């Protein structure tokens, strides 16, 4: 009784999770996936999980933010540049996070204040940040800062027989971000307002919720999470490069959608979105193991994506029907 939240939240999440588990199980059976394969999903996708978390807020309100890939890149390039100039990590990290927050909020402000379309504004943001990257440096800059080096390589190592799987600290941090987000969405007024705005902006405003402020804030959060993702990415690669993460926003959006988020807003679970990231990572791993001709790679990735979305769609439609039937019988 306590467990049954609304259908779309719980059931879609279960479906997504189940599909992930099945896929992973198949990987273990057919390709001999190891523990480290699982942990690497987190190690390799930590930055994407964090960035997806940010865009998830925006998607929940029914908006879209396609600037995050550029913001991630900018964060990496700018911090690498500053660190090269000799600034300390303690100065650089808060600074880039602040810039991400401010930039996102500015986009949100333009969207809300002047009633502009989110797609256009964030597309301009995408161009802008990408351009700043190449203005700062066209070449890749390596990060040699000792603090970064230390954090980047910090990891927990397990020993299981002959295997030595490891998880990096920043991957754990990404998991923490997801948990924190889940908490915010569930237990704070802001979180609930985000859902309400996505459900119906007009109703939310008539119910006296601070719609405008919330909308600006989600873009701010998206920018913030993107720069946080950028910090993680710069730990992940210890470099900044103006062309990195092109098209990352699509990965983030499709992760969220695979995890059951509705792009029209109001429906979605952050756990689903995070699992969505892992699923995309898993698809890539499977493709690598399957060792395809390179021209088949894209086709296979797309086919798996398609299969996944259709299965999910079919299951949720059936679930919806079954639920209706139950309701009617009960009535």
């Amino acid at each position, binding site marked *: 009784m306590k467990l*049954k*939240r*609304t*259908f*779309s939240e719980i059931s879609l999440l279960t479906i997504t999770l189940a599909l992930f588990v099945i896929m992973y199980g198949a990987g273990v059976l057919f390709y001999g996936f190891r523990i480290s394969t699982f942990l690497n999903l987190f190690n390799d996708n930590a930055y994407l999980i964090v960035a997806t978390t940010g865009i998830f807020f925006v998607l929940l309100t029914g908006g879209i933010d396609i600037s995050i890939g550029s913001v991630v890149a900018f964060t990496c390039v700018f911090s690498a540049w500053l660190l090269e100039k000799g600034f300390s990590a303690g100065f650089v990290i808060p600074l880039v996070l602040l810039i991400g927050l401010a930039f996102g909020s500015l986009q949100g402000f333009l969207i809300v204040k002047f009633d502009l379309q989110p797609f256009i504004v964030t597309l301009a943001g995408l161009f802008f940040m990408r351009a700043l990257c190449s203005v700062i440096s066209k070449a890749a800059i390596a990060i040699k800062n000792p603090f970064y080096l230390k954090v980047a390589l910090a990891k927990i190592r397990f020993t299981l027989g002959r295997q030595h799987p490891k998880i990096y600290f920043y991957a754990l941090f990404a998991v923490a971000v997801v948990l924190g987000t889940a908490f915010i969405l*569930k*237990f*704070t*007024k802001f979180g*609930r*307002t985000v*859902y*309400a705005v*996505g*459900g*119906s902006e*007009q*109703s*939310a*405003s*008539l*119910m*006296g*919720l*601070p719609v405008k402020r919330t909308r600006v804030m989600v873009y701010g959060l998206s920018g913030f999470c993107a720069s946080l993702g950028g910090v993680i990415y710069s730990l992940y690669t210890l470099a900044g490069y103006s062309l990195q993460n092109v098209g990352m926003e699509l990965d983030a959006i499709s992760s969220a959608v695979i995890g059951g988020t509705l792009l029209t807003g*109001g*429906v979605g679970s952050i756990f689903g979105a995070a699992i969505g990231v892992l699923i995309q990572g898993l698809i890539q791993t499977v493709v690598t193991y399957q060792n395809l001709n390179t021209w088949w790679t894209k086709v296979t990735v797309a086919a798996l994506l398609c299969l996944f979305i259709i299965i999910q769609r079919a299951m949720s439609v059936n679930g919806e*029907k079954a639920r*209706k*039937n139950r*309701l*009617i019988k009960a*009535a």
Partner: protein
Amino acid sequence: MKSGILLDMKNICKEYPGVQALDNVPFQLEAGEIHALLGENGAGKSTLIKVLTGAESLTSGAVFLNGKSVRVKNPLQAQHMGISTVYQEVNLCPNLSVSENIHIGREPRTRYGLIDWKTMESRSRELLAGFDLDIDVIRALDNYSVAVQQMVAIARSCDISARILILDEPTSSLTDTEVDKLFSVMRRLRDEGMGIIFVTHFLDQVYQVCDRITVLRNGRYICTENTKALDKVSLVGRMIGKDYSELSGSRTSREETGDKDILMDVRGLYKSGTISPLNLSLRQGEILGFGGLLGSGRSEAARVIFGADRPDGGDLSLEGEPALFKTPLEGIRAGLAFCPEERKVEGIVGELSIRDNIMLALQAKKGMTKPLDPDEVDRLTRKYIELLQIKTPDEHQTVKNLSGGNQQKVILARWLATDPRILILDEPTRGIDVGTKAEIQKIMISLADGGMSVVFISSEIDEMMRCCERMVVLKDRAVVCELSGETLTESRVMQSIAGKGE
């Protein structure tokens, strides 16, 4: 009843592009009164309320709360000032649970300042129990019918401890028992000293609960009177601006229908999970009512017949020819028309003009590649704007800018324009003012006289009794009995609904 002026609005003007929605309107609300705000569709009632709650900004005028001049910028501020509102269209978030919809914005918190879901849910259950509503409060709102949603919205605003409660047509989709429940809550709140503004088109309800009445017409203030001092006929006179004595058109003038030809015959039509096998027949030129309680499956039956929901099995024949409609278009082409009950979701196409909205079904019937003659459309549009008294500066106005009642009329016009053989009307008079309501009933009767068959669904038993010559009563998604002629009385209907009819 302790009086004292809670709210004083002076010279309120509100202008929309091309429309003077409010023109120098005054309005006063006292503590401890229920004040009816009345007027025809488009008179400016909802606008006055939106201006008061800050949902729309006023063009000019002044608002005094407790004697202090205030400027309400948004609904949030209005709430802080103690104004709680139920807007005309259900304005809740369909994706949130019922309990959240009741509490959002003022959630109970735990010690650590976090949302306390447990308390929220138990409080919601208690609150709804006060309205005799026993539903699962943790389910998302869009699982429930409009009526339930409307009750939730009412419960929400009654629960907000406010000085002023505004109810804009809250009863349009409620049954009598629910309305009674609402009224007892309203009386209690009034006695606690709250001021309540109540908008409705049911004049009986006005006389049941209201202390005073303010009438608007065409965006202008007409009068404020004590309810006792104003009888129904003169009230309607004030509302429509001319003398009006003929309030009730009735079917008494119509002859018995037993020997008319059967136009449509439905045998065993069903859709699993929606409606049990349905048997009924519709005669040429009759008005057939679907009776039943909320959720009894009346809308569902109508939808399956029309083809809005694809039936799983069964037979339907038109003039003896088998015809089963899998899509609305098939139904329309066969001469059916269906005016759905949820106008916001399934009726209007908000961003299109009145003209386009009216011609939509006719155009679809004719086919996409054969565009209607623009002159013909202009003629039709004007005809229906006039016939149904749609209040608008011109037919190019977008529909979402119309008042609720006028939107309903546009949808009605859309279906009348297709010149159907069978017209299915699901709550067509919801939110429509008395004058026009009687007008629509008349139109219905005259169409039936002209040979059209009408299926009529309404929550108002009176209205059904007045118009229908036969009635099919549904219960738990199945037909329980059929009443006509002598047997068609209000008490028989009630009995069959209650299950004691057979």
